């Protein structure tokens, strides 16, 4: 294996770009620990490719970071490294953290997932705030299961406002390779309507075309990412009843 330097170079090129997966990644890790340290040619190649990768980083247009980022980092400089990371947070940043579940068709809910650009994300966040501020709006906490851990999820509904908003605060990340799945339930039968991955501070879900006369329950479970579950797993996180308003 170690004699085939063309092949090794291919792996090293992929390695520095972080584009290896599967068996290639395993082999590259082995090479990096067993062969490269003792091979001057491979050491040179790796160092040069790492340099190239660092230089390519300059190609995108530079974008000055927000003025508040450095002061926020100053607040974190004294924290021990093991402490949970805090994302930069401001009203605008919170608005940008919105995740939207957007309705696609009809009352028989079919919802897809998309992450909007910051501007429309902000709009979604502001729409949720507007709904909560309306007269006779309802803000109902979803009931956490014992396994929900930290964080809270609230449902916001307002007369005359078609979407239902779910606002999560400090929702923990799901397990590795998993996402949160939103379900609508009717008489014990559930329909998956979208997945989301939480932001650290505030996550807002916008559910369109939810007919409370058809569905009587909202459920959030944790499911394997990239799958299309047909039934909620037992790993329920939050649940709430939907009542016709």
């Amino acid at each position, binding site marked *: 294996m170690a004699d085939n330097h063309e092949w090794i170079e291919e792996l090293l090129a992929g390695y520095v770009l*972080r584009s290896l997966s599967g068996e290639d990644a395993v082999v590259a890790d082995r090479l990096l620990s067993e062969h490269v340290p003792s091979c001057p040619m491979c050491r040179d190649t790796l160092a040069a490719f790492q340099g190239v990768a660092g230089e390519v980083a300059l190609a995108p247009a530079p974008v000055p970071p927000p003025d508040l980022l450095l002061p926020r980092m100053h607040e974190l400089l004294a924290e021990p490294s093991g402490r949970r990371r805090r994302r930069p947070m401001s009203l605008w940043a919170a608005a940008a953290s919105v995740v939207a579940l957007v309705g696609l068709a009809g009352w028989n809910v079919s919802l897809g997932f998309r992450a909007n650009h910051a501007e429309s994300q902000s709009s979604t966040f502001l729409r949720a705030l507007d709904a909560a501020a309306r007269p006779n709006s309802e803000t109902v906490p979803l009931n956490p299961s014992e396994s929900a851990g930290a964080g809270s999820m609230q449902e916001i509904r307002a007369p005359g406002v078609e979407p239902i908003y779910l606002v999560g605060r400090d929702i923990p990340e799901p397990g590795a390779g998993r996402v949160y799945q939103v379900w609508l339930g009717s008489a014990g039968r559930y329909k998956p309507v979208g997945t989301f991955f939480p932001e650290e501070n505030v996550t807002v879900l916008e559910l369109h075309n939810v007919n409370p006369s058809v569905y009587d329950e909202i459920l959030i479970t944790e499911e394997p990412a990239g799958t299309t579950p047909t039934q909620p797993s037992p790993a329920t996180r939050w649940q709430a009843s939907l009542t016709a308003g």
Partner: protein
Amino acid sequence: MPEDLADDLELHRRLGGRDVTAFDELFRRYGAAAHGLALRVTGQELLAQEVVQDAFLALWRAPEAYDPSRGPFRTFFLSLVHHRAVDTVRREERLRKRTERALNPEDVYGEDVAEGVVAEAYLGQRRLEVRAALSTLPVDQRKVLEMAYFGGATQAQISAELGIPIGTVKTRTLAAMRKLRRALYRED
């Protein structure tokens, strides 16, 4: 050694003494480049800020991770930013959208909104050289490189996306890296 590189080494050395002013100066020098890169890879402002913050805090907490004998501080740090950005993209499991964007070379470079900023003048010349080197790559090699680097795609994903054997992806990647190596380190 160019003065800027020497300055970087001195600033890095001062990080070991928990010198916040050195941290601030490195942020001033590399914040815009890091943010532009993170924004390019993640496609989302909040994620980009998270990446930049994590990279700078990682540098602050473990400055010894950079070994000056292995190359300039700049390439080390921006590689760190890139790694974190790619990891973030994969965590978010939204690769497809970004891969599509990486296919559009016009998006890669964009407008230099920070051109003229004093701190960016430091990196401006090298940026031009890098872009010139990238522009000399054959289209098929450049596409594979950009999908991996800016799209965060694995070689297997690139193979599937382009409908070409993974061996071809590897060959093109290596050819691109060799050409960039020659172009960028010709005079070193």
